[in-house]
């Protein structure tokens, strides 16, 4: 009658455990030894059958015999296998003595596979595991959008330029950039007609300027060795001083060593304005990171 059972389940009628794919038939029965849907490995179509299953890390050997076919509750007999691999194999052998070779062999194979994957589980839990955090699409989209808008609102280039100019005005760069000669000269010419005290102050400034001229040339040499002089052409250099400086700087530029690459050339030869303009720093950390 088992033949009949198999001919029904295997080929013609429906078996609820059977899963077909293009190349193979699988059996979803939990007591199935190999996982495939075969005549020899169907637990329903074989009255004498055995499997190895694991529960909570321990392996058990399940056996089914004809004698208990009438008692479904007692049908599957369970034997705990030892934790020792070789001992467990011996136990399988001793329990399945006189059983068909196929079942014995397959049980041992299945047991081996199970122990291997249990070892792997234990090893992996010791290592760090990646925590997968699911993305939420709506939130991702919202954050991207907000980031774009924040970028537009930030106007980064303007902010950076403003900050740099403020630092220039606040004299953090010291003597490196000596900027508005231009403005200074204009103011000079305007105020020439005015009171003497003003001109005295200007004379003092003149002296300082002379000293700064010398310093300037020396410092400039380190700064401007590379030859990107396009900016210089664009600049309107009206005063003679500037032209002299340019020539001297060019000479010095050829002599100086190259410290680092400065691909953008800076024709920086203007004075600090003698008009003190106070600017308030907005953010405190920036004052801390200024050079002393």
């Amino acid at each position, binding site marked *: 009658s088992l033949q009949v059972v198999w001919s029904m389940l295997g080929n013609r009628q429906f078996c609820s455990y059977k899963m077909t794919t293009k190349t193979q038939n699988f059996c979803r029965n939990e007591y199935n030894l190999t996982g495939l849907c075969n005549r020899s490995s169907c637990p329903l179509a074989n009255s004498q059958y055995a499997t190895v299953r694991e529960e909570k890390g321990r392996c058990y050997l399940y056996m089914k015999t004809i004698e208990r076919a009438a008692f479904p509750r007692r049908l599957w007999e369970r034997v705990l296998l030892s934790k020792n691999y070789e001992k467990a194999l011996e136990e399988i052998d001793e329990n399945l003595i006189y059983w068909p070779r196929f079942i014995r062999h397959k049980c041992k194979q299945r047991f081996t596979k199970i122990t291997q994957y249990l070892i792997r589980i234990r090893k992996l839990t010791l290592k760090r595991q990646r925590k997968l955090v699911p993305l939420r699409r709506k939130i991702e989209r919202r954050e991207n959008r907000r980031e774009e808008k924040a970028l537009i609102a930030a106007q980064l280039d303007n902010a950076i*330029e403003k900050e740099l100019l403020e630092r220039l005005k606040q004299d953090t760069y010291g003597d490196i950039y000596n900027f508005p000669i231009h403005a200074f000269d204009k103011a000079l010419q305007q105020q020439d007609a005015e009171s003497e005290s003003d001109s005295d102050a200007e004379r003092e400034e003149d002296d300082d300027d002379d000293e700064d001229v010398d310093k300037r040339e020396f410092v400039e040499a380190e700064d401007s060795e590379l030859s990107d002089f396009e900016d210089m052409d664009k*600049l309107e250099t009206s005063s003679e001083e500037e032209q002299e400086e340019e020539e001297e700087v060019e000479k010095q530029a050829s002599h100086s060593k190259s410290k680092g690459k400065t691909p*953008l050339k800076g024709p920086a030869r203007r004075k600090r304005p003698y008009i003190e303009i106070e600017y308030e720093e907005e953010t405190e950390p920036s004052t801390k990171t200024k050079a002393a």
Partner: protein
Amino acid sequence: DGSGSVPRDGSGPPAPERVLFPPTFSVSEIKNKQRRHFMFLRWKQQQRKEKLALKKKRRKEREALGDKAPPKAIPKTIENQRVYDETTVDPNDEEVAFDEATDEFAPYFNRQTVPKILITTSDRPRGRTVRFCEQLATVIPNSHVYYRRGLALKRIIPQCIARDFTDLIVINEDRKIPNGLVLSHLPEGPTAHFRMSSVRLRKEIKRKGKEPTEHVPEVILNNFTTRLGHSIGRMFAALFPHDPQFIGRQVATFHNQRDYIFFRFHRYIFKSEKKVGIQELGPRFTLKLRSLQKGTFDSKFGEYEWIHKRREMDTSRRKFHL
């Protein structure tokens, strides 16, 4: 056929005087999509005309008043309307100054320690992340890149401290792009976890400059107003050595806008006293703070100073925390 009739000649523009609508008719009630679309466009045009007319009128009135005109209204922006945060730092606040003199960054700001940075990634970084790490290492002076190779962070940290590193940066990667940044100040310092987005490597930035040089860059920190923002700002400042070399003319900017921190690296040149030109080199990325932890990196037992809780903190569009 005056009331309630829409002109039947297809989608051609009908003369407006022929059409009369009942007062409660709205454009969206027309069933035909083409006609509805057309009517909607016409309505839009009309609205625009009215708005323009209104603007002109206002401008005329303003000109007519001349000096007596009321001052121009300031447009409302999100920054204007920002919900006032009670932890905003007042520059003259003594308590804040005292805190900052005694917190973990005090040795840096007193110039007792020189920053030394370790940059690493999560396991098995892909090419983009590796290149990004290298570029970041050129931007930040005195930094070293080490491959992760499956090492546990908890074991790396004591070794780093032993070798005098002051900061640790871990760049997390997902699906071949970097998407997270963990910045940890080493000797017992705070750990900040950021979400990183729009990472652009150097070759993707449209510029024609060369690579950053070895000069120490300047640092700009913008808009870090609250206490939290302040501490994050100090963390960023502690990455860079104290004395920038102005010869190099490089500047690294951390700009906070609406809780997004934009990082840019530029080279600047002063064309005149009022004009400066900047050229972008170096990678760029944006960060959003996810959590700030008091000690060094410890996900299980760490004491969190601030975590971004979406349900509570994202409720208002005008409330920002940094």
